[in-house]
């Protein structure tokens, strides 16, 4: 046993010394000589030559050879089942070892196979015998399976049977080589591992930067789907304002909503502590109120356009009557923080505070707070009721958009896609359940949501913070309406950008509309003119949209309404009786002003809430 171990160790030694010193070129000489056939002494000669080159271990090897002679018969030499003859012309030293190993094993394999095929006498010489057998220790240490190459398993074509032997030889060598390299790399030659190379879409927690290639691709698909024959043309809008008003003392604060335009064409703007009304038809300016020491933080017209609610720094909301220019009532939030956003729904005012609470106030009730929703963790800077009142969208400084179900006072959808404060919220007037939201300085994206399913319909990168969003329309030469959305921004362009809703293309832009960022904007009652106010204390009016075409809209609107009746029965109903609710609210506000609580009105209010 000891002898055997010793022997194999020796063999290993010899093997290594031979292999490490034999260059592939030498092997080639050797193997080609061999393949020429004729004599069986090649192995001996070649090996001897290499031995002679091995100056270090030469003596050792010689000594071992002597000592081994006696052991040869006891050693059972492994059966060689390889038929591939060697012819490896590789000059690269990279393959050296692998190639050499194969070569050696194959030399021997060839000798055995050719012995039967060529009926060439096998080496008879005893000296030869021992050299060869000495050499044969090498394969016993090699992995035999390495050399078993079955061309059938590799599914590679064999050369035609009538091809010259050298062709066959080459084919087999190639095969063996492939196999060897594959195995060295730990691969299965018959298998490919394929990776799908395109990057998966980026998860919405961290969105990718704007990529022009992705957008054009997307747009291309959209256009294809819609089969739009004409290319979307850039729209020309007048980049000069139609009118510029001075707005001294305008608070350059992103989180405040200090501009509101009523459908009776009154534009309300808060300049620090004072509230001014600008009559759009006559151009008159009147000051409604000046609080002197409390700043105004939000201004919103009521749905009936006769009242305006003013949110203040101290957390109070005041409702003013425009007809009489008098204070109707003060609603205290008891939070002590500023009210930065408001939205009216008939007799309800939703107010969003700096601390993140949304309070629903009923202006008809003495205890006006009917519910408080405290889900946001940052300042509320955007609030908007959907037209039918079933949903309220809120955006906060916690980068969250929530779409509330007003019937159950719970957020129906919570969207955390934005990476900055969400101030701009706008419900689509054309499609009842589409909401557009815009993120602040670090986000710069407009997201479009389906408020029914909660899915994201699309995303537009604007390149600057989005301070407000408004839906509009333009008409192509064929009379087809294009749904558009306008966004106002800050750095670097301080621009007003108009995007097409369907293609998400930017179709018009007014760069440097203001000297500094645009904080608020409002669309005129006819939907054509955008009033913008920015940190440069200017109030500018830009004409961005074409006027709505009544006749076109009528037919389409009726069809849509009918569809709505089927799809949202409740929403249709609420719109139907919204008229008398409005009337009620007016009278109710007046009664609450006198301090007389009418029991029937509170009942009606609760009815309203239930609905």
């Amino acid at each position, binding site marked *: 046993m000891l002898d055997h171990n010793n022997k194999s160790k020796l063999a290993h030694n010899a093997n290594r010394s031979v292999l490490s010193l034999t260059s592939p070129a030498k092997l080639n000489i050797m193997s080609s000589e061999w393949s020429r056939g004729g004599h069986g002494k090649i192995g001996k000669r070649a090996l001897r030559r290499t031995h002679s080159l091995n100056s270090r271990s030469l003596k050792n090897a010689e000594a071992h050879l002597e000592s081994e002679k006696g052991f040869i018969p006891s050693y059972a030499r492994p059966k060689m089942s390889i038929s591939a003859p060697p012819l490896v012309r590789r000059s690269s030293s990279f393959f050296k070892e692998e190639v050499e190993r194969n070569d050696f094993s194959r030399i021997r394999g060839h000798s055995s196979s050719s012995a039967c095929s060529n009926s060439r006498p096998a080496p008879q010489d005893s000296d030869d015998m021992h050299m060869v057998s000495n050499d044969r220790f090498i394969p016993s240490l090699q992995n035999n399976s390495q050399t078993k190459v079955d061309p059938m398993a590799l*599914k590679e074509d064999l050369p035609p049977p009538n091809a010259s032997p050298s062709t066959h030889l080459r084919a087999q060598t190639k095969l063996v080589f492939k196999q060897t390299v594959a195995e060295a790399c730990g691969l299965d030659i018959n298998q*490919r591992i394929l990776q799908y190379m395109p990057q*998966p879409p980026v998860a*919405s927690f961290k969105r990718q930067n704007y990529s022009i290639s992705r957008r054009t691709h997307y747009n291309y698909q959209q256009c294809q789907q819609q089969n739009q024959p004409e290319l979307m043309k850039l729209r020309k809008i007048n980049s000069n304002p139609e009118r510029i008003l001075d707005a001294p003392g305008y608070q350059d604060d992103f989180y405040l909503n200090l501009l509101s335009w009523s459908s009776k064409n009154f534009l309300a703007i808060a300049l620090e502590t004072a509230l001014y009304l600008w009559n759009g038809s006559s151009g008159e300016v009147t000051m409604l109120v000046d609080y002197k020491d409390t700043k105004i933080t939000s201004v919103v017209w009521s749905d009936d356009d006769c009242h305006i609610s003013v949110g203040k720094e101290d957390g109070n909301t005041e409702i003013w009557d425009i007809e009489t220019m008098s204070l109707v009532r003060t609603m205290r939030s008891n939070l002590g923080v500023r009210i930065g956003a408001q939205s009216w729904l008939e007799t309800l005012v939703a107010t969003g505070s700096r601390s993140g609470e949304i309070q629903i106030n009923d202006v008809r009730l003495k205890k006006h707070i009917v519910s408080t929703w405290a889900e946001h963790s940052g300042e509320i800077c955007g609030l908007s009721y959907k037209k039918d009142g079933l949903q309220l969208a809120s955006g906060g400084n916690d980068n969250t958009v929530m779409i509330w179900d007003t019937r159950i006072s719970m957020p129906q959808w919570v969207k955390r896609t934005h990476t900055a404060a969400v101030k701009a919220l706008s419900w689509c007037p054309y499609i009842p359940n589409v909401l557009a939201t815009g993120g602040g300085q670090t986000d710069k994206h407009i997201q479009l949501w389906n408020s029914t399913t909660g899915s994201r319909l699309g995303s537009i990168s604007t390149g600057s913070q989005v301070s407000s969003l408004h839906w509009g329309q333009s008409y192509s030469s064929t009379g087809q309406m294009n749904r558009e959305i306008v966004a106002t921004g800050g750095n670097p362009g301080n621009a007003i950008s108009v995007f097409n809703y369907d293609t998400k293309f930017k179709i018009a832009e007014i760069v440097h509309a203001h000297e500094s960022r645009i904080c608020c904007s409002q669309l005129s009652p006819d939907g054509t003119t955008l009033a913008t106010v920015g940190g440069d204390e200017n109030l500018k009016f830009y004409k961005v949209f074409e006027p709505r075409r009544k006749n076109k809209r009528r037919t389409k609107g009726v069809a849509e309404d009918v569809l709505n009746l089927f799809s949202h029965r409740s929403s249709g109903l609420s719109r139907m009786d919204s008229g008398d609710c409005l009337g009620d609210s007016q009278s109710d506000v007046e009664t609450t002003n006198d301090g007389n609580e009418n029991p029937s009105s509170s009942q009606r209010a609760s009815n309203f809430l239930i609905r």
Partner: protein
Amino acid sequence: MSQSISLRGSTRTVTEFFECSINSILYQRGVYSQDDFTTVKKYGLTLLKTQDDDLKAYIRVILLQVHKWLIGQKCNKLVLCIVDKDECEVIEKWAFDVVHLKNEKFIEEDHEPLDPSETQNQIRALIRQITASVTFLPELTNEGNYTFNVLAYTDANAKVPLEWSDSDSKEVTNAETVKFKTFATNDHKVSAQVSYKH
């Protein structure tokens, strides 16, 4: 002819299973935000499916190609790797082995036709197991920092579209591997396993 129809049906079952499992893995492992997922009923289970159009399209393109390979019996493994974005390190590897039972290698074995409801039951059990595996898998902290890659093991002679290219096997280092249940259709046998960093 009837065999080709059953092959198509069986392949469809396998591809659908892949879709469901990829979606639920992406959800369970938090690769994508939970806001992007919506519930659907499938195999008598409530599964989560993405509603992000980009991701939907991405998975769809992959599975369409895998489907083609499966029909041609060229694909024998589908791998979903969850990769750390910063380090480009494979954190988890979900492997689905597909055995083509009607392949010439197995032709001598005679299969009695499987009841489709039996297949459904097996798929349900497997998906339940995948869902439950979250309990023992290490928590993926640093939400949003992961992405995924899909590998397909195909035959050497399969037709490969441009988007696919050769890759290494993306092994997880120091991996612990857990084998899941298998399911079988008339033509395919699918087994799943997950390797994760120990």
